[in-house]
């Protein structure tokens, strides 16, 4: 059961994001109105934890669970794709209040209507693959 540990990580992720209310359309709306620190606090502490962890991994040259050196890939250089892609993503994020993780979490929680968002998200991914070569990157 190689996959079991990933299911377990996902299980914890689903509970944390739900109890943090990061899956809530309301919290995303409140964040974009700058009417609460909650979401900003979550994102900033997550990044701070990640920065410290990744610095430790790099400086101590830690190995992963299978004993291989940990290599974290750098993101491809560029600007247009990140700004325009990011902008489109942000429009969708604030519109339906969920990003890809929460879409799956909410669907699992039993919100059938989120299935429409998932359908759209898969279709949007498909559209990108279809016209990718015609877009500025």
């Amino acid at each position, binding site marked *: 059961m190689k996959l079991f540990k990933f299911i377990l990580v996902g299980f914890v992720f*689903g509970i*944390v994001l739900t109890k943090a209310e990061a899956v809530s359309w309301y919290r995303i709306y409140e964040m*974009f109105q700058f009417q609460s620190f909650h979401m900003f606090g979550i994102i900033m502490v*997550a990044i701070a934890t990640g*920065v410290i962890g*990744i610095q430790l991994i790099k400086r101590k040259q830690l190995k992963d669970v299978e004993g291989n050196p940990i290599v974290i890939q750098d993101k491809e250089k560029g600007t247009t794709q990140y700004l325009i892609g990011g902008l*489109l993503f942000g429009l*969708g994020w604030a519109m339906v209040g969920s990003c890809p993780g929460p879409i799956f979490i909410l669907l699992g929680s039993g919100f059938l209507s989120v299935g429409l968002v998932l359908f759209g*998200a898969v279709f949007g991914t498909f559209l990108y*693959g279809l016209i990718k070569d015609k877009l500025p990157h």
Partner: protein
Amino acid sequence: MVMEYITHTWHWAISGFLIGLIMLTLIYFGKAFGMSSNLRSLCAMTGVGKKIPFFDWDWKSQRWNLAVVFGAMIGGYVAIHFLNDASNVTLNPKTVEQLAAMNIDAPNGKVLPDALFGNQIFQSPKMILILIVGGILIGFGSRYAGGCTSGHAISGMSNLQLPSLKAVIGFFVGGLIMAHFILPLLF
């Protein structure tokens, strides 16, 4: 007593710390934290890669990430059905007022507003369209930008990646435009 801590809204510092740990755990497992690539896997699984090269990739090597998503769905189910409390999603009263002006119901412990996600929306072509278009923007945008909140805002920023900062700036500019200028027109 302990149960009370679990069922109430988790503090942002604890939540953020745990999300950081989840990302680090996946790195320790030799993988990376990024949820939107699962959408690409779902496309590739249909066999559409024969016609569109972007989907001609080895999604089976990404099965671990689908396992994460599967676990997340169960986690969400458990949290919503067994760990909820009427005090959840206590918003800024100003936010609740603004929502009321747009005819969007207050949370009262719910994570999603009925106005957008209640089952009655299946009778409203407008609401169906809003949810699908929102989804398309999320799917298209995250693939165009090469990642979403998990891949860029958390993973990329934690690794001090300039491209991720650009993507996150895009996320927020897009989100602010939607929340301040477009949502009020839609509701």
